[in-house]
Structure formats: C-alpha cells, structure tokens
C-alpha cells in the first residue's frame, strides 16, 4: 500500500473513530427497528430446517447496533435458523460473503474501549452451532450491497449441506437489478420459452445466439457474449456469491462521485458504475462485480435471461471481462472507463476456473458463436477497447447438490478430447 493511500486510510479511520466515539452509542436500540426488519424477513424450508433472513438498511443497522455501520460499508444480515433436524448445523459466514466482517472487527472500530457496546456486538452476532431441535438467530456482518442483495446461507452438518438462497431487497437503495422483472416475476411469456432436453439441439441454439452485446439502438456491436450460465437462484447464484460476486448499483452520478473518492483513498469499492450494454433490445438483467484489490481491479459480469431453458433450468447469456486499469475515453459520459484485458478468453477462463471452487459447478463445455477475432486484427467494444478471442463461449451448468472438484463433467462439445478448448490464437509451444 502506498504511503499516501495508507495515510488517507489512517486519516479516514481516525476521523471515523473520533466521530463515533463522540456519539451517544450506549443508547439502547429502539425496539421498533428490530420489529420492522423481522416483519419483512423471507423464509425458506428444506426438509426439517427453516431459514429466515432480512437485510438491514443503513438506518436499521444504526438503530440495532447503535453505530453507523453503513458508513464503513458494513451491512448486517439477520438470519434465523430453526433446526428440527436430528443434527447440529453450522452457518457458514464465508458463504454469505467471503470478505465478511467478524463481529469483533466491527466492534474494534465502533466500540473500542466501551465494553457494553463490544458485548452488544458479540451478542448480536450469529452464534454457531444450531443444535438439533433449537432455533438460533443473529447477524452476519457483510459488505454493503445496495438495492438487492444475494444472501446465501450454507448450513453444514456432519455429511450434510443445506443451502438456502435469497434475493433480498435492501430498503433505501436503488440498483440496476430489475427484481420485479427477472425474479421472481416472468420476463418471458410461457409461449416464448423453449426448454431443451436434447444436448445437440441445445448446443446448436447456444451457438446461434448473437455474437456480441450492442449499444442501445442495436447499431453497433460491443463486447463478446462469451459466457452461458445455466441455473438460477438455487444453484448458479450461490456459486457466484461464494466466490465473491455481488450485484451492482445502477449507473448514476452519485456512484461516479464515489468512484473518484475511492480511487483517491485506494479502498476497495464495489460500486464503480457498470455501463449498460444491450441484448434482446434491453440492458443487462443482472450486472455483477467481483472486487479485487482496489477500484482499478475488478471483474465485470453482465447477464441476460434468455428465453431458453435447459432441462427446465434458466439459461443466462453473458459477457465477462477483466479490468486491468482505468483509462480516459470520449465514449463514456464519465470520460474514464475500465481498461479491459484484451485477451477476453483469459477473463472467461479465470471465471470458469474460479467457479470450479464454488461447490455447485457440475458441468462445463464450450460452444462457438462469438466468432474468432485474432490478435493481429482485434475487434473493438463500444468504448473502442480492442479484444481478441478464439470465438468460443463457456457453458457452465450448475447444480444445487455440491459437486467435488474431482467430479465435474466436461461436455464433449467444441474443442477436442472431451470438451477442452484449445486456444487457436496462441499456438502451444
């Protein structure tokens, strides 16, 4: 970390400490806030285990914790597990957010030297285990999501996993995720949907999808549609959440302001704006980001729900790119844009390889449809970033039942010898 970045961080955290230590933190949390978030909790039941969750707004978390958690990007998720099964379960905080905040870490900044507040943070935290026949509730402190949050609750007992997935609306925020349309509502009329059960027909349908995203009136092609994700809330989303992918905020001016602030302080900021790209005549249904070290390094994933289904599972078509820096551009109203790795196949491979560790990846294959763009004559995206590709799209099939690394299937589609794509741009040495 550079000296300046570190100094700014120290300054910021010192200011925050001063600010919070001057607050009346010892006031007991009002009961009303607690009731509000519990009343909108969503519940799901799997066999004898029932899980309820609710994501707190900034105001609610301040009321419950007596501390402005949202100012440091912390968002409490309330979870209640009612265990009528015959074994004790453990809730996996890293499944909710690989970069979650231990309660003590949040207490260190908001309650340092105040034992009562420290104790409140400890008491509010979700406490493992959930013994057989009992109900346990508490909070896991996650990174702040605005708009809609993907909440993944992995409960592990001996030789058993119960996974619960929720899309939870966060009060008080906006997002470019259009929850009313995509989930749980219907984007496509029943007669528009084509469910494939034949591998070859499905493969042909995937290869026939458009090569690329477009601008909003469909006159120019942009980034390649190099990814197909098969699955939904129960299987594909949990995989993405476990590997640190988050929904993004809508592109709006406030976000840009904060991206600039973020670039100055060097803090990891997960809401750099994602510009809309178009497929099926509409902007992405879901835009996700995976933050890396700081704002300059994040990977972007945009997904559109297609009218295709594969054995009943939703089929998402998407575009994945790796940011390797920022650069100036006249093709974006913000005048800066992410410099993407021109080797877009690398970004595709990186996502695929990462999702091998997600527990839910079940099958992988490749289909054509993107079209080859060689390194010597690369194609350009909508912000004129050049890219080159072998022309394949990765097809990732997810399953709710966890699959070990040694059991993942390679579909024998494109490529040779069991579905491996051999780069045709770079001849092997």
């Amino acid at each position: 970390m550079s000296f300046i970045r570190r100094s700014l961080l120290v300054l910021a955290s010192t200011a925050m400490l001063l600010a919070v230590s001057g607050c009346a933190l010892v006031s007991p949390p009002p009961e009303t806030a607690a009731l509000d978030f519990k009343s909108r909790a969503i519940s799901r039941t799997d066999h004898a285990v029932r899980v309820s969750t609710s994501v707190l707004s900034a105001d609610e978390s301040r009321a419950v914790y007596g501390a402005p958690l949202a100012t440091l990007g912390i968002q409490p998720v309330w979870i209640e597990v009612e265990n009528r099964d015959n074994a004790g379960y453990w809730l996996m905080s890293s499944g909710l957010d690989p970069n979650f905040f231990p309660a003590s870490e949040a207490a260190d900044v908001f309650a340092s030297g105040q034992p009562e507040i420290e104790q409140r943070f400890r008491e509010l935290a979700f406490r493992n285990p959930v013994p057989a026949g009992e109900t346990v509730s508490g909070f896991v402190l996650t990174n702040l999501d605005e708009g809609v949050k993907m909440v993944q609750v992995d409960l592990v007992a001996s030789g058993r996993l119960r996974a619960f997935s929720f899309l939870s609306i966060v009060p008080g925020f906006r997002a470019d995720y259009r929850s009313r349309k995509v989930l749980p509502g219907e984007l496509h009329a029943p007669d528009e949907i084509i469910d494939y059960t034949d591998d070859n027909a499905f493969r042909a349908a995937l290869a026939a999808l458009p090569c690329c995203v477009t601008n909003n009136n469909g006159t120019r092609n942009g980034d390649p549609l190099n990814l197909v994700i098969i699955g939904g809330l129960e299987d594909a989303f949990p995989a993405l959440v476990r590997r640190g992918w988050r929904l993004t905020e809508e592109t709006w001016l406030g976000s840009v302001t904060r991206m600039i602030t973020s670039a100055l302080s060097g803090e990891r900021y997960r809401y750099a704006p994602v510009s809309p790209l178009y497929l099926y005549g509409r902007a992405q249904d879901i835009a996700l980001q995976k933050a890396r070290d700081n704002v300059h390094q994040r990977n972007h994933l945009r997904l559109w729900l297609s009218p295709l289904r594969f054995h009943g599972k939703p089929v998402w078509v998407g575009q994945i790119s790796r940011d390797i820096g920022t650069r100036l551009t006249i093709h974006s109203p913000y005048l800066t844009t992410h410099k993407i790795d021109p080797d877009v196949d690398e970004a595709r491979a990186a996502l695929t390889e990462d999702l091998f560790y997600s527990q839910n990846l079940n099958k992988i294959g490749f289909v054509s449809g993107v079209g080859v763009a060689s390194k010597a004559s690369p194609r350009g995206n909508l912000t004129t970033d050049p890219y080159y590709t072998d022309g394949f799209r990765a097809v990732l099939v997810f399953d709710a039942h966890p699959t070990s690394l040694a059991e993942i299937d390679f579909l024998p589609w494109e490529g040779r010898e069991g579905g491996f794509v051999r780069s045709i741009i770079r001849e092997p040495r």
Partner: protein
Amino acid sequence: MSLATWLLAHLPQSRLPVWRAFAMLGTAALQFALAGCASWQIPTEVDDVALRARAVSATEQEVQLSATVLSAEDSRRMFGVDVNGTGIQPVWLQVENKSPQMLWLLRAGTDPDYFSSLEVAWSLHAPLANADNAALDEHLDRLGFQNPIPPGATRAGIIFTNPHRRTRLLNVDLVGQRRMIPFTLFLPVPDEAPDVGLIPIRQRYAATEAPEYADPDALRAALERLPGYATGADETASADPANVVMIGELADIGAALVRRGFRRDTMELDNAQRLFGRPPDIVVRKAGQGGVPANWLRLWLVPLRYQGQAIFLVQAGRPVGGRFAVAEGKDLILHPDVDEARNLLIQDLLYSGGLAKLGFVGGVGAATVARPRDSLAGTKYYTDGLRAVMFFATRPLALSDVQILDWIPLPNREGDLDAEKRNAQQ
C-alpha cells in the same frame, strides 16, 4: 522444445534492426523525460535454464509438475523489468502430462487473486510508447502459462501471483474429465534468507519420538494433553492460546490454506511465540481487503502421529482493528476473542475442498471475558477453552462430505454469554 528455444524462434523482436533500436532509444529518452522512469526493452537473453535448474518437481498419476519462484534477477532477465518489485511473485510452472487425458490447470487454486499477463503488462506501460507497450504485452502474454495440457504434451509458462515469503506453498490443481490431480510443492523464495524451518519439518521427529495413534479416542486424549498455550522466549510467560489442531500431510493442509488465500509470511513477532521449545515451524497469513492486516495461523509440528499422518498444533488469531486499523504495528496485537478467529477459520476451510473431518477437544482451558488470560506484551484473551481439530484429505471434498465428530458437543456460546452477563453485572 525449451521455453528459450521457442522464444528464439518466435520473437523476431529479439533481432532488432539498428534503426529500431535507435528509435526505441529516442522514445525511451522522451519517456524518461516525461514520466521520470526508464522505458521497457525486450529482453535479449530470455531463457529458463536457471529456472529449470532450481525447479522443484513432483509426480502424481502420470503427471509431472515442476515449479520455480522467479528471483528479481530472473524477472529482469525474462521480462525486461523487475516484476517482483511491483508486488507480484512470478512462478514458473511446467506440466508434463503423460496421462491419457487432457488436463486444465486451475489458476484460482494456485492464487485466488492471480494477475493475468496483460494485467501485469498494463501496469508497466509507459506513456506515449505504444510500440513498446504492445511489445511488452506480447512478450508477457507469450510467457504466460497456457491451458489446456493435451495428453502426452508438456506445457511451461509463468503464473503471476501474490507473494509468499521465504517458502512458497505452491498449490496446483489440475482437472480433467471427472478427475482432479492436486499438487503441493514447497518452493524456496529467492532473494530472501533461506528458510531453515520448513523443509526439514518432516524429518523433525524420529519414529521413536513421535508415538503413533490409530484409535480416535486415544488421539483425542492425547490432543487434550497438548499445551494449552505457547510461552514467551523465556518459557515462563504465557503467550497466545493453541486453539486449533490440524491433522494430515503438510501438502494437504497447505493446499487447503492456499486455496482459501492464505500465504506464507512470518513476521518477527511470530517468533516470540514458543511451543516445544521453538518458534512456529510455519506461519501463514490471509490478507484482508485492500492489503490491511491479515489473520494468521502459526503451526508447530507435534511429536505425535495419527494413522501415519502429521499433527500440527496451531494458533489461530486475528489482529485488533482488522481492516479499519491500519496504523503500523497494530496488525500484530492479538484480538481477545480468539474463539471467533477459530470458528471463522473452520468456516473458511470448509470451502477449501481439503477438510474431511472436524471435532472439538478441550485442552486450552477456559478464560471468561470478565477474567481474561494474559498473553505476551500485555495482550489478553478469553475463550471457551476448546480447540478445533481439523482432519485434512487429498481427495477433494464437497461441503456435504465433511464429517463432524461428536467428541465434545459443539461449543454452546449461549451459556457463555449468560455467564458473561452475570459477570458484567457483578
């Protein structure tokens, strides 16, 4: 064909015409004036002979893996710039696939936050030097490791990773059709003091010194008799608690840790903690977001074995302040809630694919919030007194495969909280 001969055959830039060299010199001078830094030039002596000579190799299921961590000098020679100086640790890998299956190397298993070749190149681009920058891109891209590895083929290349200190625990997961071949190698990190602790670790105890346990109940009793906490250098002051036990081959434990982003990194302060009369054998850290202070694990090999496997006594700790305390030195103060660090480690490693069994035993000794126990340098901690025992396996496991042993029922923290409240009221 070696990397060197391949490069000679494929890099026409290495036979630069004179005019181009002059042009580059001019551009370089301009850039130096503009940016105050030297420009990049294509290295003329790219070879991997030195890397091969130092490589550590292992063979599993008809596949041979060789690997070397690049020194700053290797880096300058091969990349024409000291990539190591930018906080990146390049690792040279060679996979020789004598199996009948196509294989794919999962870079996310080697480093979940690895850098792509062009990402490294972009960070080294000079302003107003398009030709040089393009050549740099091309050069690093060609040196990068390329998937897949066809049957009978050998592939060699570089993966750009985050640094490990002193010895790199290199995890390489190769996957094929319904198959996985995991490797863990221990690679010396050049440009650093030699690592005396790690490599001989497997020879530390002779068979006579390390009794073998085959029975889980006898093992449990033995684990409860292990020291509850470390001591300071003078072996009288009590230090941090030994709240975790890891059982398995070091390679399997290392693979699980690396997959979850732990990196080898020993700090001076770690060596103040002593068990069995010595400082920790291995220290790993998991960086928080934005490079802030990391959680740590300090491991000591124990003079016991279980069904032929090594046993490590471990301190799992988290620094006070975490992501929000960035002041120098603060990263080394133990947070008093050590059970939290232990429990979160369990959750993290459950996603590693390397954890097979989990149980709890006593042996640390309880210390309440109201009456915490002293550690070194005025730090204190409280705990339910249990240590988590984790059994590691080579065969990759899913979350639903982990067995939880009913040794001590999972710690019931609700009861502790009630006790804490009573203590607080008194």
